């Protein structure tokens, strides 16, 4: 179905090629997962498949890309619209019309299909993707998962043979992500579609993949193989694979189900082993929310939320999209006025503080860290932060150097990788050492390496006595760093307790290791490895 022969891509005024010497054959009906670090060329590889590279992006393409017998050299992306459906990273940015039905029909209108055919295919697609109830709603009003399904539907109506998706689940909560992935799997199994997708969150996708393509970046060659072959010694792997490596299972498990079949002996070995050291008890209280009510117009976002945050604890805030997580963060930083109840940080009302004074009590990294940045280089950005918070010159830059070593001072913030940009925003916010730090979806778009770095940073912050509250969908991150979890639903806190207690019993929020080893209470592969090592040291 897809043939890449010795493909290389070099963009104008770049010194090194983004991709080189890629040989790949993808047969019909496979679900192929493309993995690799941020900036390694995954998106470029995906975009060669429908000719966006080089027709749209510019640059030079060497070698040949043939999809369903059509060479992208002679076919522009629009000429491949009936063969390849391409869904970009942000579905909302790709919508041309504003109603669901019109959006589904747009591609067919461009191809000039007969009205009767269009009508039939729109109905079929609505049913296939479960969108019939929202057919006449504006796309902007849908949930993120529904939007992603509309984006998939909008390219499916032209009946392509290949579906290409760039990070389809990175912005979704776990349940919405499963909805989308289930849809994709159905397309592969029922319709024989070939699906190629890039994704950082391996733990969500790898179990569905027939083949994994590793794009290592730099000059290293692109490799492909079955998930097991590629992940056997890949530097990064989902927790369930790491657990398999620790326990020495063969073949390596790719899904929780595979792993659970092997897990009985491991559970036996862990029986009676020491659990992870309990985290030090939290210190003095930093922030208090009492019966906080916040609403947007007549839509209530928080309905009487009460909680406290203390020094030295890292608290994860979980819940589906629209449950009120971001609103709670905004209320804590004074960006959103509370209509009743009380919020205090360090005993002060954040909404009443002047911005310059606010900095010293609470810092927040918004969902799009780039919103905080406006200077033309990293160095100037850091100087600006020093001036804003009246710090000695160079302190923010020094902090950034510690968090993310080896980044040039002259780089433009826009050219940084997703992870580096997050650490830059983090450095700016942390420079004045506010006791309370809020993070909104910090792992969106981060690769595993950047995420590991973030986990280390967050642990250090907790050790230094900061109180950290992070709103996130990433259950594995929560398992790694959080000491306490708050679960929100419909503007209320529905669960509040130590991480292990809250997440293990929840089907949506349990990390993979917990699912494999339940009813025992283990959260991360590292915990298991440490426990096994100490158990063996005690009784050789």
């Amino acid at each position, binding site marked *: 179905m897809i043939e890449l022969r010795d493909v290389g891509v070099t963009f104008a005024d770049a010194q090194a090629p983004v991709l080189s010497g890629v040989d790949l054959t993808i047969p019909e009906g496979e679900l192929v997962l493309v993995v690799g670090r941020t900036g390694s060329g995954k998106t470029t590889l995906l975009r060669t498949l429908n000719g*966006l590279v080089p027709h*749209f992006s510019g640059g030079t393409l060497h070698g040949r890309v043939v999809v369903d017998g059509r060479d992208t050299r002679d076919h522009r*992306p*629009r*000429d491949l*619209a009936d063969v*390849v*459906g*391409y869904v*970009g*990273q*942000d579905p909302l*940015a*790709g*919508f*041309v*019309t*504003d109603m669901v*039905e*019109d959006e589904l*029909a*747009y*591609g067919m*209108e*461009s*191809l*000039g*299909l*007969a*009205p009767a055919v*269009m*009508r039939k295919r*729109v109905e*079929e697609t609505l*049913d296939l993707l*479960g969108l*019939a109830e929202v057919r006449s709603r504006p796309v902007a009003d849908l949930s993120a998962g529904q939007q992603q399904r509309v984006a998939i539907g909008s*390219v499916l109506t*032209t009946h392509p043979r290949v579906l290409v998706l760039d990070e389809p689940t990175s912005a979704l909560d776990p349940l919405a992500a499963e909805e989308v992935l289930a849809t994709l799997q159905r397309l592969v199994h029922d319709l024989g579609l070939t699906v190629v997708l890039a994704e950082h969150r391996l733990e969500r996708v790898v179990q569905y993949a027939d083949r994994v393509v590793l794009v290592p970046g730099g000059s290293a060659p692109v490799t492909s193989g079955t998930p097991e072959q590629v992940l056997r010694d890949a530097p990064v792997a989902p927790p369930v694979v790491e657990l398999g490596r620790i326990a020495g299972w063969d073949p390596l498990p790719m899904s929780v189900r595979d792993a659970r079949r092997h897990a009985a002996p491991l559970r036996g070995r862990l029986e009676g082993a020491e659990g992870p050291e309990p985290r030090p008890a939290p210190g003095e209280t930093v922030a208090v929310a009492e019966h906080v009510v916040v609403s947007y117009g007549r839509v209530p976002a928080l309905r009487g939320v009460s909680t406290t945050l203390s020094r030295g604890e890292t608290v994860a805030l979980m819940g589906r999209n629209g449950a009120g997580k971001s609103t709670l963060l*905004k209320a804590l*930083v*004074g*960006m959103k006025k509370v209509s009743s109840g009380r919020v205090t940080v360090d005993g002060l009302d954040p909404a009443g503080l*002047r*911005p*310059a004074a*606010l*900095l010293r009590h609470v*810092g*927040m990294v*918004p969902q799009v860290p*780039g*919103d*905080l940045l*406006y200077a033309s280089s990293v160095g100037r950005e850091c100087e600006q*932060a020093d001036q*804003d918070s009246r710090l000695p010159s160079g302190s923010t830059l020094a902090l950034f150097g510690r968090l993310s070593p080896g980044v040039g001072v002259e780089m433009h913030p*826009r050219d940084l990788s997703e992870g580096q940009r997050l650490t830059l925003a983090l450095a*700016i*916010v942390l420079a004045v050492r506010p006791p309370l730090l809020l993070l909104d979806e910090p792992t969106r778009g981060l690769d595993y390496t950047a995420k590991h770095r973030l986990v280390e940073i967050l642990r250090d912050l907790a050790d230094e006595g900061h109180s950290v509250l992070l709103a996130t969908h990433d259950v594995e991150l929560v398992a790694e760093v959080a000491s306490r979890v708050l679960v929100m639903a419909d503007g209320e806190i529905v669960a509040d307790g130590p991480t292990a207690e809250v997440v293990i019993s929840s089907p949506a929020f349990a990390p993979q290791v917990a699912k494999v080893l339940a009813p025992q209470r283990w959260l991360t592969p590292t915990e298991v490895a440490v426990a096994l090592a100490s158990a063996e040291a005690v009784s050789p």
Partner: protein
Amino acid sequence: MRAVDRLTFPRSLHPGAWWVWAVALAAAASRTQNPVPLALILAVTGFVVAARKSNAPWARSYVAFLKLSLVVIVVRILFQALLSTGAQGPTVLVTLPSLPMPSGSGLKLGGQVTLEAVLRAFYEGLQLATILCCVGAANALGSARRLLRYVPGALYEIGVACVIALTFAPQLVTDAARVRAAHRLRGRNGTGLRSLGRLAMPVLEGALERSVDLAAAMDSRGYGRTTDETASSRRTTTVLVFGGLLGVCVGIYGLLDGTASTWLGLPMLLVGMVVAAAGLHLGGRRSGRTRYRPDPWALPEWLVSGCGAVAAVAVFVDVHVAPEAFFLASVTAVPPVPLLAVVGILVAALPAFLAPPLPVAAAPTTPTAHPLDDRSEVAV
């Protein structure tokens, strides 16, 4: 009789019909400053909007336009009363403290405020306000965005550009609000010129990125694939369309102005329309696009646009027959009631009953059945 021809069959009316109706009312309003027909037109638009608006977000635009109209009237009166030296009458209402202005500038500040000046300003403001409300009614009843779906094939690219602009403008506002809120997190107040520059950077960068994403998405979904055209055919189309539109504009100006020479009016409008239609037809032939579920143009559409036309024609004819009822000799006199115009405008209120009612979303009929069950039947 087709179902779509029935006046009681629930569906949304073709947006074009609402726009024809509203534009005709606006044209009628543009011919007079007599407050009686103006107030009547205002009432008619409000009545029809109240009767036939949907609960879509754009349906609220009528209220926004109404508020804007009030502002227009108030501003108009204030400027006339406080600043203008011309058209002051004998009836002095109040005398404000005045500032001497350079003679010959045509300006004054303060001084005498007369009843005549205020009334004239009010009537002029009312005319502009009425036209604004007509546009607001059109937008509330058939959104501009929906209307753009019916842009002829030859103008398709321009239509797409308009739709994207309509989407991006509100997005820019939300982005700006978000970035401003983020600046507070860096200890900035977010006021002043320098912070405006800081705001512009991320907002414009974001907008640019989104446009590139959108262009990529459109390209990979086949945008522009079916147009096969030669340079000469494209040129012919462009000349015809724009030449024709120019003719239409001149014709409309001649018709509404009423003082221009007669050949500038109706004949020019007709010639322009024919030329533009030829251009659109030529251009439409080369575009191979098809249209998904277009709204039908059936009896109710004809009736609604016809009602608007009746009002416009009645006012135009009445102005011609009895001009003294439309151009007031004295602003302080009680305005006369032009009978023919009033009857015509009242006809324009009929769409409140003639336009079909809007469909109401049906409640799920079998709430107990699992939605997946009947879905799989259709999909297989």
